[in-house]
């Protein structure tokens, strides 16, 4: 809690943390200077690998390992993924709007490490303020010699281009994002090949999340080992969590992982408004299976502990639901989201998510049948066989299985409420 990396500047200087003056006054671009004057690209990549930072976009794959997959061919591209759209998340938005130079410096250092001369930042179209602030940062950095030709008089040159999305959650999936950036439909590609081998314009490409990239200046300055020493071993560093819903102090929190969910919700988040009871929470965004107080309050907030309990930290979105929550309506909101955001290219996701939505809507409007519970589970099973964790899938990408998480969660934990809404429980039938 005392240790912060990403939010230090914006907390200390809320009035101007996004400006280059404030950035320079607080050590900004020192990391870049260190990188290009004292370190080889391999040195920088080595520090990132040593940091053990796991990608902050949701999948949790170690960033340094990902960087190591690049084949020895050029050009290569870096794409910063700021298509943050997972319901419950808003931390990338804050990092982009409030400390754009930190993100930009991370992108410049990463490009140096990766041998990239053109980087893209894909920002969702609904974040114009973030795009404006980052563009201003790009302009300021270019004028100051941190970007452009021969950065800080080195041989390293870079352009950074902002690309706005068009309103499609699926473009947060890295290969869909690349298609979108190429002017195509945002449909996920088949993998392999992975973007590191064949990405943007079929060239080697690294796609990293905003939070991951924003950590790079600190890692460069302080060393990978310093980062790795923060927090639990396999959940190193700090993590931005977005806490929202029925919570007294919603917001983004940069935490060191390892606390319990009880501490997170009741201490960090300030507890439930009106001291109402906690019914359930989503530990890692709309895609994640739900947690409930009777089972998970003392589970630790780490990648692995959450994973072992059948859910995920994901992009770090915690959505808290109090005892008054209509769980069917809540699940429906999430299922509707995924049905709306399904790209539609593969059958189970295209047809299955909409089917789940339709059945939930029928139940909510009083047309439920008792067999609908089994139907919901079986349709979910046909999208994500076994409804296990990590999810198996009949689909091309994880979006379809994500839609099954709230469905299986409410049937697993709140079956009686679903049955009550259907109104034809077996008791009633007798």
């Amino acid at each position, binding site marked *: 809690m005392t240790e912060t990396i990403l939010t230090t500047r914006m907390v200390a200087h809320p009035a101007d943390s996004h400006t280059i003056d404030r950035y320079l006054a607080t050590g900004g671009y020192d990391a870049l200077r260190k990188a290009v004057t004292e370190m080889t690209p391999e040195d920088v990549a080595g520090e990132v690998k040593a940091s053990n930072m796991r990608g902050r976009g949701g999948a949790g794959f170690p960033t340094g390992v990902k960087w190591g997959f690049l084949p020895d061919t050029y050009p290569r591209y870096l794409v910063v993924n700021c298509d943050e759209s997972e319901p419950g998340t808003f931390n990338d938005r804050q990092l982009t709007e409030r400390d754009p130079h930190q993100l930009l410096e991370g992108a410049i250092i990463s490009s140096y490490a990766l041998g990239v001369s053109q980087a893209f930042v894909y920002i969702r179209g609904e974040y114009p303020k973030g795009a404006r602030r980052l563009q201003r940062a790009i302009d300021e950095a270019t004028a100051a010699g941190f970007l452009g030709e021969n950065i800080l008089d080195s041989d390293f040159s870079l352009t950074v281009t902002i690309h706005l999305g068009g309103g499609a959650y699926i473009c947060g999936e890295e290969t869909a994002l690349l298609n979108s950036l190429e002017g195509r439909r945002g449909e996920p590609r*088949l993998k392999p090949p992975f973007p590191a081998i064949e990405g943007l314009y079929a060239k080697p490409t690294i796609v990293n999340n905003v939070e991951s990239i924003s950590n790079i200046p600190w890692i460069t300055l302080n060393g990978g080992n310093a980062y790795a020493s923060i927090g639990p071993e396999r959940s190193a560093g700090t993590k931005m969590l977005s806490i929202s819903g029925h919570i007294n102090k919603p917001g983004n929190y940069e935490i060191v992982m390892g606390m319990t969910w009880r501490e997170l919700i009741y201490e960090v988040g300030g507890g439930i408004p009106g001291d109402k009871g906690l019914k359930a929470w989503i530990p890692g965004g709309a895609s994640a299976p739900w947690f409930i107080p009777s089972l998970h309050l003392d589970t630790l907030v780490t990648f692995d502990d959450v994973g072992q309990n059948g859910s995920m930290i994901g992009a770090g979105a915690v959505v808290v639901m109090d005892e008054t929550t209509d769980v069917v309506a809540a699940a429906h909101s999430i299922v509707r989201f995924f049905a709306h955001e399904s790209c*539609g290219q593969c059958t189970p996701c295209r047809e299955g998510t909409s089917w789940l939505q339709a059945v939930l809507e029928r139940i909510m409007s009083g047309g439920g049948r008792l067999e609908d519970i089994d139907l919901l589970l079986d349709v979910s099973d046909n999208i994500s066989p076994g409804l296990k964790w990590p999810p198996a899938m009949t689909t091309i990408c994880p979006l379809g299985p994500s839609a099954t998480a709230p469905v299986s969660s409410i049937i697993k934990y709140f079956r009686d409420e679903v049955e009550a809404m259907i109104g034809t429980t077996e008791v009633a039938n007798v």
Partner: protein
Amino acid sequence: MSDATSTVSITINGVDHEVEAGARLISAAERVGEYIPRFCHHDKLEPVGKCRMCLVEVEGPRGSQLVPSCTMPVSDGMVVDTQSDVVKKAQEGVLEFLLINHPLDCPVCDKGGECPLQDQAYSHGPGESRFVEEKRTFVKPIPVSDVVLLDRERCVLCDRCVRVADDIAGDPLLVFNERGNQVQILTFPGEPFASYFSGNTVQVCPVGALTSVDYRFKARPWDLVSTTSVSLRDTVHSNVEIHTSRGKVVRVYGAENDSVNDGWLSDKDRFSFSALDAEDRVTTPLVATGDGFAEATWPEAIDTVAARLGSCMGTEVGSIGGANNTNEEAYVLSKFMRSVIGTPHIDAQLGDGINPQLAAAVTPRATLTDLDSVSTIFVWGPDLKETLPVLYLRVRKAVRNGTNLVVASPAATGLDGIATHVIRYRAGAGHDALRKLASGDGSLKVVSHLLAAGSVVTLFGRSSISEDERLAEAVASFARTLDGPGSLPLLGRGNTFGALDMGLANNLLPGRVSTGDAAGAAAIEDAWGLIPESAGLDTMGMLNAAVAGDIKAIVLVGADPVRDCPDPALAVAALEAAEFVVAIDAFVTDSSTHADVILPAALWSEVEGSVTNLEGRVQSVQSALPPKGRARSLIGTLSDVASAMGADLNAHDVAIVSKEIASVAPAYGGVSRDFLIFEGDADGVIVPTTAGHQPLGYIATDVSVPLVTDRFTLHFPRSMYDDGVTTRHAGSISGLVNESFVRINPRDASMLAVEDGSTVELAGTIRMPARLDPEVSEGSVVVPFNVEATKGLTASASLSVQAVRGEG
């Protein structure tokens, strides 16, 4: 190129198999007898893994995983289960997903009875639907082009049609729209799916979403009789299945022959069949009455023809055409003209082709499959997309796989967009460009180096009917200096190569024997009796001779020189001057209307026989129907005429003729129909192209073609939907005849004060709208050949171009 023979071991359902390395699991499994259901997978299309029907379990480090077998390459030691409970559940789940929004209108669906969705629902699907919600609905069907209809409710979004349109045909006009469960296939408003290859989408559609206007509600699959044959719409000879129902051809499908057409067809291959039943088809002999034609009996007509031909000296008779007939028919025509009539004046081409000896016996001659393995393809000839569309697809495929492409043409061609280099020369200045290319430096240095750097197949021919035919010979000569398997000559009309091989040329005898080859001619005389010794006149020579009175009788065999030769006025004059004209044709054309007698001809699909494509590949065509009305095969017609003249052609049926060809025509030694059908490769047989039994090895020479320097030189190319006889009579595609305009360079246009769309006058006679096109070389114009608007225009090397004031 991977080693085609290397294999890996995989286990499918507990049984070990050796399968081709690098193959996709779904294909490897199918080859060893394990069929995995699929909708989006298609052997000839890139995998997309979209339908998810082909999920199987593959063992991996983290246990068994469901994977789509269409995208998964096989690897050594792979253990696969295609029948586990997990697999069955997944496949049944996918099928259910596909059916929930499907209209289930099978009884009124053209696909019903041959529908994979229907079949798999029957064999894999649950008995009743658990889907009680409202189904997705769309307006249906909607036309996506003049020949294809789309029913979006039936569509399973497998992406096959989109891949055919974009990847195969290069016409990304049929695309996915919207997102999620609103995804649908659509065209852009006002921009129909006007692809030359649109019919392939109907054939690959795994459901009844895409149907052809022609076939809609025409037949049920179980009523269809299928006949395997070969399309004669161009010289590629794409393999087809002709589907007949109740005595009519109702549908033509592409058949897979990877050596020829990969299963694809052009829309002309696919939809021309409706000409068979055109209302104005000639189905009975006709005799000119002075103001039209009267029907006649066959004996009356035969007697008239025999008497009139018999009254001429042999060399006063000429024969034009025969390029749309079978080899057997062509052989009999050649034999009839040479041995019965006694004339050497024979030509299957209409002055629009190339030297017959070069076309028949170019040395060395490449094959179509060579296109897949060379480093560069060099095209200097007609626009392949317009004239040899399936060859265009083959070149596209090679380029997709990394082959370089060099295209030389006086105007933009369909291949320019994917070419590594385009050589653009002013019409009439081709030889100049060739000289630059051959010299290896100057502006074409890079191209010369590319051509010299690896193996090359050269595709050569006349870029248009106004181009000097000797340029093609010069290109063929240049091609001989390049490494690689050789060249392919490009000629358009159906069985031209078969006709030339059978001796339908002024300088060729059957089996690629030159008329100058005394020993070869003597061998043929042994079989036929006496034949004329020297070479004869070609088509243009015959037409001139007719005007001069030296040719008195003309036999037109499915030929329309008035519309199809370089000098229409000459053709009219010749046909009017001739004392007797007999047209063996299926239609009254601008030429056959001048005939004294019209004998109704059987058409493609009504006769059986052999045909030879541009590689020299001999394949079998089958009759799917009897000839319409009283139409007859050329063999029967000529036998009867010969008989009435007291001669015996020994041509009682195709089998007899075929055997005679196999024994008389040297290059065809042993290649009889029986051999093709019972012993030959299913892909057909390429008759020898070098040495061996081919007596003629034609070495093209670098003839010097004079530069044309006039103000406006003419590029006069054919297009796919020109006003050709068959296109005009094929209902569904007859409306597709290309729009007519003169393309002119904007600088020339501004000098002439011509604007886009304004009217210009060509050669002082023809008026057409102009289209400004920077791709046209300055000083030349591009005018479409054989369209209504340019009817009668002479294919001269140059012409006058003038703005027409007060119009346009």
